[in-house]
């Protein structure tokens, strides 16, 4: 066994210094995972570029830093966070706001909506619905390669719990807004658990924002269970500042005949790493993994996708597109694994990237690992520039070059956006992307939070 690196040691210390406090505010069931996860994290450590899955991302920029405290909420924080709760009257989404990974209302942390859906604090849920949580918690977030998932399991104490009962079709999407706001540099981790039972339909929007200028590190894990015949859409909009580091790990487990989509829209952020794991665990399931990232300045955006076909006759799709400006760098690491018995698999993957400047850089690594023969799989990846022919076509209609470039970039990006099924949301995203491409983005038009 190799010695623990200096960077990893920081987090081992953080754990040792805080574990009592963490255990104190969390439910016993969630606490029961910590010791084992801690050991696993000790073994795997903070991923370095030697880890094939992190080949193109140097985490040390953010991890080798002294986060003065592990964030723990006190009453005053909640009061402050409540300011961000505004009336959601003109928003067609039901909403929750998390502050630095915590559910910011002291009372009534777990609600039932009229349609029967439960939304609220995971910790509360572990106490109130022990059977449900025991059935799903920690079951999908399985990895032997990424120590950060285990670090989350070891230390996270709260996050969002959503339960969509059997047969419930939720028309309005639910929006979770993750705010990071602190006077000092903080490290925060939250943990979400989403359970969509049989024959249900549910859309979740997660928006990530930073409200104050410090150096922030977030390491979040989401587990989602999608039951038989269910539909689940997850849309993640990331709009954080340049000194924020956002790491997300999303594990989506699907049962028979279910359809699940994940859409990561990274509009802004210092260092962003999204790992999305899709497990097609039942026959005839369909999974879609989409991503769009727009990077400039010194930003680095890394998308890691793993699609595992464990059952026959499933279909999967991956589409990731990136536009990189200035000295921004991007990485894509997508994997399709078809297990021996997953006959009748259809799996597609595409990654297209545009470099706008000489200093932007893109590394892409699409992979196919196939152990069954009745399969149709394909992947494609490109790195290039805007197409000259198209640019000329637009100019020949009188559109100036700058505008023509923006239009082409927008068209390029829209291919990802168009997969959002809710029209209003799709339009908002189009808008946001357009603003971002014009350099006008200040806040997300769809957000209930009026962040600066």
């Amino acid at each position, binding site marked *: 066994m190799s010695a623990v690196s200096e960077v990893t040691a920081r987090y081992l210390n953080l754990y040792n210094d805080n574990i009592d406090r963490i255990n104190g505010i969390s439910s016993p069931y969630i606490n029961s995972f910590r010791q084992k996860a801690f050991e696993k994290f000790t073994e795997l450590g903070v991923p370095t570029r030697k880890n094939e899955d992190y080949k193109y991302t140097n985490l040390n920029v953010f991890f080798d830093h002294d986060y003065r405290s592990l964030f723990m909420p006190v009453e005053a924080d909640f009061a402050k966070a409540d300011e961000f709760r505004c009336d959601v009257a003109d928003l067609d989404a039901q909403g929750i706001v998390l502050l630095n990974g915590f559910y910011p209302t002291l009372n009534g942390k777990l609600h039932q909506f009229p349609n029967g859906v439960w939304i609220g604090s995971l910790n509360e849920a572990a106490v109130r619905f022990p059977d449900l949580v025991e059935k799903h918690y920690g079951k999908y977030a399985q990895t032997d390669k990424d120590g950060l998932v285990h670090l989350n399991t070891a230390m996270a104490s709260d996050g969002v719990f959503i339960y969509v009962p059997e047969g419930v079709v939720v028309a309005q999407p639910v929006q979770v807004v993750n705010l990071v706001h602190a006077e000092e540099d903080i490290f925060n981790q939250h943990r979400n658990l989403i359970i969509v039972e049989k024959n249900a339909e549910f859309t979740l929007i997660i928006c990530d924002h930073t409200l104050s200028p410090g150096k922030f590190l977030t390491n979040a894990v989401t587990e989602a269970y999608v039951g038989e015949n269910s539909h689940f859409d997850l849309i993640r909009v990331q709009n954080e500042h340049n000194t924020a580091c956002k790491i997300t790990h999303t594990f989506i487990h699907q049962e028979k005949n279910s359809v699940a989509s994940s859409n990561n829209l990274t509009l802004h952020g210092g260092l962003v790493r999204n790992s999305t794991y899709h497990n097609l665990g039942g026959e005839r399931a369909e999974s879609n993994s989409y991503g769009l990232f727009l990077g400039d300045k010194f930003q680095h955006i890394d998308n890691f996708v793993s699609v595992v076909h464990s059952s026959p006759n499933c279909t999967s799709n991956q589409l990731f597109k990136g536009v990189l400006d200035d000295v921004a760098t991007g990485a894509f690491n997508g994997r399709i694994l078809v297990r021996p018995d997953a006959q009748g698999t259809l799996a597609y993957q595409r990654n297209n990237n545009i470099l706008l400047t000489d200093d932007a850089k893109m590394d892409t690594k699409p992979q196919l690992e196939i152990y069954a*023969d009745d399969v*149709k799989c394909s992947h494609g990846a490109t790195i290039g520039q805007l197409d000259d022919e198209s640019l000329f076509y637009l100019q020949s209609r009188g559109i100036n070059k700058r505008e023509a470039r923006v239009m082409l970039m927008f068209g390029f990006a829209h291919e990802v956006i168009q997969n959002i099924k809710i029209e209003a949301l799709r339009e908002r995203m189009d808008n946001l992307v357009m603003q971002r491409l014009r350099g006008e983005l200040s806040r997300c038009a769809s957000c209930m939070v009026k962040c600066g």
Partner: protein
Amino acid sequence: MEKEQDSILDEVTSGEYKYGFHSDIETEKIQKGLNEDVVRIISAKKNEPEWLLEFRLKAYRHWLTMKMPVWPNLRIPEINYQEIIFYAAPKQRPALNSIDDIDPELKRTFDKLGIPLIEQAHLAGVAVDAVMDSVSVKTTFKETLAEMGIIFCSFSDAVKEYPELVRRYMGTVVPYTDNFFATLNSAVFSDGSFCYIPKGVRCPMELSTYFRINAANTGQFERTLLIADEEAYVSYLEGCTAPQRDENQLHAAIVEIIAEKNAEVKYSTVQNWYPGNKEGKGGIFNFVTKRGICRGESSKISWTQIETGSAITWKYPSCILRGDNSIGEFYSVAVTNNHQQADTGTKMIHIGKNTKSTIVSKGISAGRGQNSYRGLVKVLKNATNARNYSQCDSLLLGDKCGAHTFPYLEVDNQSAIVEHEATTSRIGEDQIFYCNQRGISTEDAIGLIVNGYAREVINKLPMEFAVEAQKLLQISLEGSVG
């Protein structure tokens, strides 16, 4: 053409590994195992100059500090380097002046393999360097080529006769520290081919090296060095076979190519080492480092490989595109049947301006075979207007095999256009039905379809070998259907 097709099909129905015989040739071997003394003995046997011994020793000492790579998608059994014989040579009379001096059994062996050691009129288009176990036994057409200033000889002869050339170029493309197997080779390499095409000369015939492992318990470690000076052209082909044996044998070779300004090198390989039996017993471990550098502007290196043999194949013929406007190409068909494993692909490193590379890889997996494409396309910061197109297809025959694709695209220049496409599928039932409906049996239909699938690559081979390669494909897939 139809005739040809027929004979191919004939071959299919009867095909087994047909080069699996072994010849009783008196062989000189050294003790098994590896240590500094063994390295010295190999060098001494070859009467090598001091600098070369030094090179070997440096490599050996470095090798001791290295570990076997674990990143390939392969399951490689532990290799005990102390059980391998690192030098074996057919015994021969002191001087080999005419063809009559060659051991008749040796000649028969190569005849059986279809490799003439005699300069036959009907094969006048191909010059052959035949290497058995550790040494080169005969190079044909040497004199004809010499008239044009072309040097084509065994590596050992080159060390003696052209030490400056060897010294100037050896290890410049694959340094002795490059990787575990290249370093091992640098320490113990036995023989191989050397080729130098002078300025402005187009080599009038195919140059070919034929490698044969014969002796048991030996490893083969040959080294090829090929230099095309300015404006030169050469097409080079290597073929390999080995007897059927129950134990695994190690083959760790190095090929280095240097292409100067406006030079063009075509390097083709038909690799048919013994793949092991149906249960996966025996077979060659083929761990090879092949790399070329397009040093001068507008130079071109093109790799074509048909990989049907070996129990395990691990090789990535690569191009370093340093000269402006230089071109790199990689065309590959890799077949894995029964228990064969292959992890193969290429690296295209774009350094010069306006450099272009093309990658076409066709993997075919059958039986319990595991076939991986692994490739890197890297565009460095100053490589403006670099272009790459990669197409990697995999065909699956049977439900116990695997096909994997691991491309790495690393682009650090805005003006680059890099495109990668890959597909994995099995032969369409509709395609087979269409053939069946026209009266073609399923087995034949698969043969036809597989050949069609690989055609794009096979067409890149020199004519003489394209037909051979097609047959090989059929034979290696024998028994994989149904």
